[in-house]
């Protein structure tokens, strides 16, 4: 009954490979996000989707491509992985209800290690 679930939890891969991280939320939320947490624990927004539409796209290399097949899913595909992509990637979601809007609920994170 996990609210925001990400798979895989750990991902170890070689430089140059392409990989995907999946995220699903069962909270009925309209907005989903991807954040990146670097080795110094700094958290930064990457993308945000509202009802399958991209609404936030921070300065992220175009090797990163989010895809939202429906409002409960937001996947992150990364092409040509680089050493600097090693980080923990968090998925989050938030409701449209104005009383709870802006409260983002996070998944457990995916730790990506690029060798």
């Amino acid at each position, binding site marked *: 009954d996990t609210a925001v679930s990400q798979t895989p939890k750990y991902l170890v891969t070689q430089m140059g490979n392409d990989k995907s991280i999946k995220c699903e939320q069962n909270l009925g939320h309209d*907005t989903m*996000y991807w*954040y990146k947490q670097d080795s*110094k*624990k*700094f*958290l*930064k*927004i990457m993308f*945000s989707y*509202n009802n399958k539409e991209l*609404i*936030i796209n*921070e300065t992220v290399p175009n090797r990163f491509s989010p895809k939202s097949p429906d409002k409960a899913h937001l996947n992150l595909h990364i092409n040509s992985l680089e050493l600097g992509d090693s980080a*923990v990637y*968090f998925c*989050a979601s*938030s409701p449209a209800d104005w009383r709870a809007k*802006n*409260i*983002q*609920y*996070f*998944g*457990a*994170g995916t*730790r990506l290690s690029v060798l």
Partner: protein
Amino acid sequence: AQKVTQAQTEISVVEKEDVTLDCVYETRDTTYYLFWYKQPPSGELVFLIRRNSFDEQNEISGRYSWNFQKSTSSFNFTITASQVVDSAVYFCALSDTDKLIFGTGTRLQVFP
């Protein structure tokens, strides 16, 4: 530009001590939201509280309390009678619309 500053990188206390985590923010918006999240050693991010810019009432939830002061642009978090389970990295964050701007976090270590 929006910014959140958590000047305390790391705090160590002994169990049962009270501890305050500082958060100072910058924004030009008149409507905004402030948050605290906890990241325990297991790594997940746990939502603790949200405050909107029009509500300066302090809040208490068990051993946790928050002090929001617009005059000093601060939103500090106090843990009373700290416990070992409080050991975590705590993040303060700011939001105007949809994205969260996080501070760099404060690592709290509570020793038995």
